[in-house]
């Protein structure tokens, strides 16, 4: 609708709601999340732990933890196809082929009892219908594309014989085997050490360019966001509280939470006695007040903030914030 791009977005998420039904009440893990993503574009999904970033990603591929979590509403349009109306069998054909995903923990994301080759060959065989030598060739080429040297030998190795960074590259190779239209990377570098992180991020960027992937990049590292993403969505308590182009979010953050988040990043070259922290605790999602979820921690909160939840307010081209402070302007 507001999208300037004439092409249809690869992914269009509309009013997605995923609730967790627990003994302590219903938790609105994803509460009306909407965003669209074009070919070759990267959306950074940031927010603190428990803000619903991962749950949003899992909802897109319909892999929310059962039976507690339920996707209760909304649409997830992948190239115009609503994934939420698909059968489980149809979803299995979509996962991997049209949506790839990379998870956080490289130590456990490969099956320890099978060789890397067996695991890389598997998606290649099922997506491309290859067998025998051509299959091995293709698997090796895939490993080479994620910059693993002597890939033919590496195919024979077992996961425990590889380093974390290498394993994560293997997982990346498997995720782009199809290649998919959409790649979801859920904190893929969190458990890698810093030098490897930079390498891996460059690799992801290259793969994205090569295959024109739409990418969702989940992280709580704003430095990585700045380097990887075209647009940023800031999540808080299951909602996108602010979304906009990368520069706008970093230069003119509109939501008090985004501002606080940016302020809490230590800067090189400046002497700071104490790091800025966001006062208060993240909200208990089971007992949310009807108002803005950030109100209890917000310095600018008014009476209205506590009683009425703000809708997304458009501030500029593609820039929205859910905050009453901007309602008047």
């Amino acid at each position, binding site marked *: 609708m507001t999208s300037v791009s004439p092409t249809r977005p690869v992914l269009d998420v509309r009013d997605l709601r995923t609730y967790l039904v627990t003994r302590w009440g219903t938790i609105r893990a994803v509460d009306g999340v909407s965003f669209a993503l074009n070919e070759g574009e990267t959306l950074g999904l940031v927010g603190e732990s428990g803000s619903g970033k991962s749950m949003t990603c899992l909802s897109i591929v319909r892999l929310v933890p059962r*039976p507690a979590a339920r996707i209760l509403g909304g649409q997830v349009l992948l190239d115009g196809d609503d994934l939420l109306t698909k059968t489980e069998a149809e979803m299995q054909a979509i996962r991997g082929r049209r949506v790839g995903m990379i998870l956080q923990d490289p130590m456990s994301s490969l099956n320890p009892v099978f060789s890397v080759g067996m695991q890389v060959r598997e998606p290649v065989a099922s997506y491309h219908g290859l067998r025998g030598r051509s299959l091995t060739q293709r698997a090796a080429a895939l490993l080479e594309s994620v910059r693993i040297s002597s890939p033919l030998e590496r195919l024979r190795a077992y996961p425990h014989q590889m380093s974390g960074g290498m394993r994560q590259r293997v997982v990346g190779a498997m995720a782009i085997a199809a290649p998919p239209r959409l790649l979801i990377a859920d904190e893929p570098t969190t458990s890698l050490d810093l030098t490897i992180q930079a390498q891996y991020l460059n690799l992801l960027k290259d793969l994205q360019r090569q295959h024109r992937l739409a990418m969702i990049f989940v992280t709580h590292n704003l430095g990585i966001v700045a380097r990887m993403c075209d647009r940023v969505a800031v999540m808080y308590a299951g909602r996108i509280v602010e979304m906009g182009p990368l520069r706008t979010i970093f230069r003119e953050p509109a939501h008090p939470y985004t501002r606080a988040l940016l302020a809490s990043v230590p800067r090189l070259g400046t002497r700071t006695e104490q790091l800025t922290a966001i006062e208060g605790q993240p909200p208990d999602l089971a007992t949310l007040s009807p108002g803005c979820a950030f109100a209890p921690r917000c310095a600018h909160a008014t009476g209205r903030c506590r009683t009425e939840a703000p809708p997304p307010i458009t501030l500029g081209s593609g820039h929205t914030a859910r905050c009453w402070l901007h309602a008047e302007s």
Partner: protein
Amino acid sequence: MSTIVVPEVAAAPTVERRGRRLPVVPIAIITVFVLAGVLAPFLQLADPLEQSLRARFRPPVWDESGTWAHPLGTDRLGRDMLSRIVWGARVSLAAGVLTVLLATAVGAAVGLVAGYYRGRVDAVLMRATDATLSFPVILLALILAVTVGPSFTNVVIAIAVILWARYARVIRGQVLTLMELDFIAQARIAGAGATRIIVHHLLPNTLNTLVVLLTLQIGYVIIVEASLSFLGAGIPPPTPAWGGMIAEGRDFVTSAWWVSFLPGLSILLVVLAFNLLGDWLRDTLDPKLRQL
């Protein structure tokens, strides 16, 4: 001038390599009994069923009045003890292995399904497991023996019907931990279905546990089978079964000790060997399984 004192190199700390050395003795014992059992028909032994009342209660060969005609003596019907123990090994080991395989298959399937699907499926299967675990094996076997009649098949079924529950318990627990690991999530993301994940990802990762449990349980099953045969609810006579042989000899322990003692010793050796082998496998394959 100060002299540099080179500290004496401390002896490399001897890492306790527990459970690494091949358990030669248990393997030897098991091999001997397995070979004896398998090769029983070809060993040119006396017929284990042939009675000779004149030759009853012959002592073993190392006794003063023993002869090489019956190296381990004869029982109260004059049947050759060596031959009966060898044929008994066949019965005991076959019962042990078959029962454990059956129980493993059922138990692993139940554990994998319960752990994978969680929720209601898990609740139903695990309550069934609890119920099964609370049922005494011997009682079930006695009921089967009384109602259907004692037989080798019934013994295997009776024990397996109870034993699977242990496997189900352990495997379910392990599956629950495996399910939290990212490679399962990664497999789903790649489009793998339930069957594929259970067979391809979960089962291979529980094989270590299964093998350890299997070995440890063979000994247990042999004891249960012997107890059942002892009580007359197991392998029916005249088929030689170690438990039954102990029962037959118990009235003559003071006069002819070997009739009960030798099959008892066989049970002891085999069960001990399987337990030691199982312990070793556990320590070698997965030290985290100490609680088994």
